[in-house]
């Protein structure tokens, strides 16, 4: 950063620091690791959706030549675990009961994978089948069949009810009250890399685990209890992750089994999951049923909103308590909602557990709200873009549910996509285009255009376990060569977090990103970063890295100032030199400046720490939802619907994203484009669906995801709002831009054919059914009809904080007042 406050590295479209390894095939993912004497492991997984285990006989498997060890749950400490302290309900290898097809019951280590697989087939498990509950309705209708013994009721994992002001009164005073029911089908992350882990229990009694994980810290934190080993003797190293999207955020059975098998065999053990296994172990998008009631004035102002959500949680808790809150708490940060009520319930079913997938719990209610706004706009005779712009949440204010909004670029985002897409013209033109009678062999196609807005967190304001420590830590060390090392526990899952950790110190120190070496997450070496989730990494690691680099800069600056006999305040860092701008000829090369610094201060190593501002609402549940700042997105989709086949073809997508500041516009665009793509998949084809306890299509061929042919041109616009909470003003980009795509598609389909799609994915048969309803003169809507019979608990009544001014902006623990 120059003395004029202009950036040299920030804002440049630089290649990622790991790009070169990735384009040459040199990146070593977890399954690429090979160690001497390494054994190969395999898990035996349940073929029952719900069954009691009467016994497991491993005799024949143990006798197979080439088998080193066979374990069951009896070989592990009898403790249950789970990523959230409130949901400790998992076993690596089930001992009493299996709750889904795919639950692991035994593990084998053998000379090769084929032998391990053959041994698994020789393990006899005596199951007593129990009724499998495969939907929210089934689980609620059978309280006698309990999937777990804990929770907020029979088969109810979590029941949440919060009320911020009197919504009923607001509805009474409304010009229009809309009530709609929506369903969002579950889907899965589908990372191209299948999960893999290599464990090595060394002769020194210490364990090292390499894993494709997004949260090495949480894995490190849970393993001591699961394995009954001291945490100080366990080292977790995050291998480069070949796609995460939230799918590698939990501790998994294969990681734990690899550790135990290594301990028993004295060999390194690798377990690499198959693609089919990845479909079962997923912690993907929850299927969510939603009921939303919103009141409007005749001008389009929202008077109040009441949302009910039912989540199909699957067999285990995972992040589900957080997911449940997220279906309700983030919606209010976009538009003015003076009073708000949210009731949510997560129900256990005998399906793979759901958890965090890109957008974690928020794309579903966002879909509901943005579709409902589209309907309200039509009824009120307002343009959907104008309606949204009218009701934007004001910057630096609080929402009804006590979340603090800092900068908000949603209005500018809407302007960008409206202008670039030719919204007004197309809105009018497509609507009046009539289908002229055509011969049967000619296709009948209609065009439509739809819009939606959205918001997402830039990092969760609280950790998953209660503590007052930093959420992210960085250690910076300057070497006499002029190289700088960064140690940070963040994991690069492809989003480019390692690159951000190189760019920011390079900016502060006036050196090149190539001069910065970023060490991968390694719990024995790198300070804790909580993990790559909730879009927290750029902001939290970024601020910590800037703090560490600023401290290093100050130390070096003092030494160079002494050498040049000037005041430290005069010193600038740029072009790999340190000196006084007006006397740049005497500037010292950076390497020499480091030597001067080391001579003055000793070893040059400085920490940086970040913890979010403490702004959680003072009510039970107020800890889920607060974030240092929120990113905003707006999307316009233009599409063509074939009325004969029901096929929807996307023509163009315009997306604008308020990223605060684009630290590297190339990477931000990549995140935005990837989010749009993933939203398209969720809107039109992806569904994690089951039949008779089994996944209907656990394969890349039949689980449809968009290829190059289904992905339309994506036109990306970045909006910069320079948020006071972010590193150099930056917010997140990796998740938020997914959210508006799905409702924008549903709204565009309605614009094209006049059928409301209150359910995703929107498949061709839904289009055809909708058109048939329209022809019959019935309500042209496809979506859920009935709601589960379920009584939510009495809501916790909290006063609405809507419109209150924001406080404690950029006031946070560990912030160095001298930096």
């Amino acid at each position, binding site marked *: 950063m120059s003395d004029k406050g202009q950036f040299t590295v920030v804002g440049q*479209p630089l*290649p*990622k620091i*790991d*790009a*070169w*390894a*990735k*384009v*040459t*095939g*040199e*990146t*070593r*993912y977890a*399954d*690429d690791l*090979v160690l001497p004497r390494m054994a190969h492991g395999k898990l035996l997984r349940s073929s029952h959706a719900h069954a009691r285990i009467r016994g497991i006989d491993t005799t024949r498997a143990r006798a197979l030549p080439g088998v080193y060890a066979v374990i069951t749950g009896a070989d592990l400490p009898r403790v249950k675990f789970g990523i959230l302290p409130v949901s400790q309900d998992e076993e690596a290898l089930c001992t009493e009961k299996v709750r889904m097809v795919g639950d692991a019951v035994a593990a084998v280590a053998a000379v090769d994978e084929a032998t391990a697989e053959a041994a698994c087939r020789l393990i006899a498990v005596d199951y007593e089948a129990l009724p499998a509950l495969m939907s929210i309705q089934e689980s609620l209708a059978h309280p006698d069949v309990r999937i777990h013994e804990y929770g907020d009721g029979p088969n109810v994992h979590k029941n949440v009810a919060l009320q911020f002001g009197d919504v009923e009164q607001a509805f009474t005073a409304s010009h229009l009250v809309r009530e709609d029911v929506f369903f969002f089908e579950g889907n899965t*992350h*589908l*990372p*191209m*890399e*299948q999960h893999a882990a290599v464990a090595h229990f060394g002769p020194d009694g210490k364990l090292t685990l390499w894993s494709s994980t997004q949260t090495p810290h949480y894995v490190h934190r849970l393993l001591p209890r699961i394995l009954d080993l001291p945490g100080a003797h366990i080292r977790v190293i995050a291998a*480069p*992750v*070949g*796609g*995460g*999207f939230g799918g590698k955020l939990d501790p998994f059975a294969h990681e734990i089994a690899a550790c135990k098998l290594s301990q028993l065999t004295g060999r390194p053990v690798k377990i690499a999951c*198959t*693609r089919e296994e990845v479909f079962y172990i997923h912690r993907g998008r929850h299927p969510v049923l939603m009921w939303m009631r919103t009141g409007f004035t005749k001008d389009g102002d929202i008077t109040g909103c009441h949302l009910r959500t039912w989540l199909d949680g699957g067999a285990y808790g995972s992040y589900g308590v957080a997911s449940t809150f997220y279906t309700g708490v983030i919606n209010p940060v976009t538009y003015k909602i003076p009073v708000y009520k949210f009731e949510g319930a997560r129900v256990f079913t005998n399906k793979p557990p759901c958890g965090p997938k890109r957008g974690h719990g928020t794309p579903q209610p966002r879909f509901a709200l943005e579709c409902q706004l589209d309907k309200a706009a039509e009824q009120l005779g307002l343009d959907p873009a104008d309606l949204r712009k009218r009701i934007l949440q004001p910057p630096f204010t609080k929402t009804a549910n006590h979340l603090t909004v800092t900068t908000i670029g949603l209005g500018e985002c809407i302007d960008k996509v409206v202008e670039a897409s030719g919204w007004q013209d197309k809105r009018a033109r497509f609507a009046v285009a009539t289908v002229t009678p055509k011969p049967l062999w000619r296709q009948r196609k209609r065009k439509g255009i739809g819009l939606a807005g959205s918001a997402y967190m830039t990092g969760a304001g609280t950790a998953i376990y209660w503590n007052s420590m930093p959420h992210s830590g960085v250690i910076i060390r300057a070497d006499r060569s002029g190289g700088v090392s960064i140690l940070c526990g963040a994991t690069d*899952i*492809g*989003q*480019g977090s390692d690159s951000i950790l190189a760019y920011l110190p390079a900016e502060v120190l006036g050196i090149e990103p190539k001069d910065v070496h970023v060490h991968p997450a390694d719990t024995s070496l790198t300070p804790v970063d909580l993990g790559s989730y909730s879009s927290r990494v750029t902001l939290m690691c970024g601020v910590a890295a800037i703090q560490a680099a600023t401290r290093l800069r100050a130390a070096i600056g003092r030494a160079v100032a002494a050498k040049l006999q000037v005041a430290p305040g005069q010193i600038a860092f740029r072009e790999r030199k340190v000196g006084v701008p007006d006397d740049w000829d005497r500037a010292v090369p950076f390497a020499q400046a480091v030597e001067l610094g080391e001579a003055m201060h000793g070893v040059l190593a400085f920490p940086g720490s970040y913890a979010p501002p403490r702004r959680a609402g003072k009510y039970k549940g107020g800890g889920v939802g607060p974030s240092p700042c929120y990113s905003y997105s707006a999307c316009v989709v233009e599409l063509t619907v074939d009325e004969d086949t029901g096929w929807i073809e996307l023509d163009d997508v315009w997306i604008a994203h308020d990223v605060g500041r684009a630290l590297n516009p*190339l*990477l931000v*665009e*990549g995140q935005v*484009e*990837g*989010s*749009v*793509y*993933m939203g398209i998949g969720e809107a039109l084809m992806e569904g994690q669906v089951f039949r008779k306890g089994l996944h209907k299509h656990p*394969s*890349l*061929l039949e689980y449809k*995801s968009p*290829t*190059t*042919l289904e*992905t339309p*041109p*994506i036109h990306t616009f970045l909006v910069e709002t320079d948020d006071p909470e972010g590193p150099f003003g930056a917010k997140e980009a990796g998740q938020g831009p997914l959210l508006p795509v799905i409702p924008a598609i549903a709204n565009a389909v309605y614009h094209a054919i006049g059928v409301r799609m209150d359910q995703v994915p929107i498949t061709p048969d839904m289009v055809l059914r909708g058109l048939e309803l329209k022809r019959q003169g019935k309500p042209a809507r496809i979506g859920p009809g009935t709601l589960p019979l379920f009584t939510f608990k009495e809501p916790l009544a909290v006063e609405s904080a809507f419109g209150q001014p924001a406080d404690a902006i950029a006031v946070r623990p560990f912030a160095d007042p001298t930096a």
Partner: protein
Amino acid sequence: MKTRVNLNINGESRDLLVPVHKTLLEVLREDLGLIGTKHGCELGECGTCTVLIDGAPTLSCLALPADHEGPVITTVEGLACAGELHPLQRAFAELGAAQCGYCTPGILLTARALLADEPQPPRQRIREALAGNLCRCTGYTKILDAVELAALRMAQAGGRT
């Protein structure tokens, strides 16, 4: 049962003794240490394990080494020439076309086959050629941009493929 095979990989002749049922993907990764070739499904569904056999994109998870003795097999490790990156590799790195990077080797090789066949393909043609390679990170946009950039640079440099 094992069989002796001779494979011509990235310009090197390699003699191997491998089980008859072992796929080319497994032999590349496990017997030859060419871990640049990745697996996404091992069922021929995702394109991740694509290698070139005599220049043609081939799913190594469905190929048996014994069927490919003789022809030139190219993996991602064979794409750079004498320490100089292929224009596709350079463009993919510069434009951010590799995010997690897991699908990248397969896509690079498929794109190279396309450009050998059609040095200046229109965007739709690139789309069609890459339709068998799944990528979950990029939304394909930067990948298409990078193939176009590489094609342009190769045309300017005289058509090296």
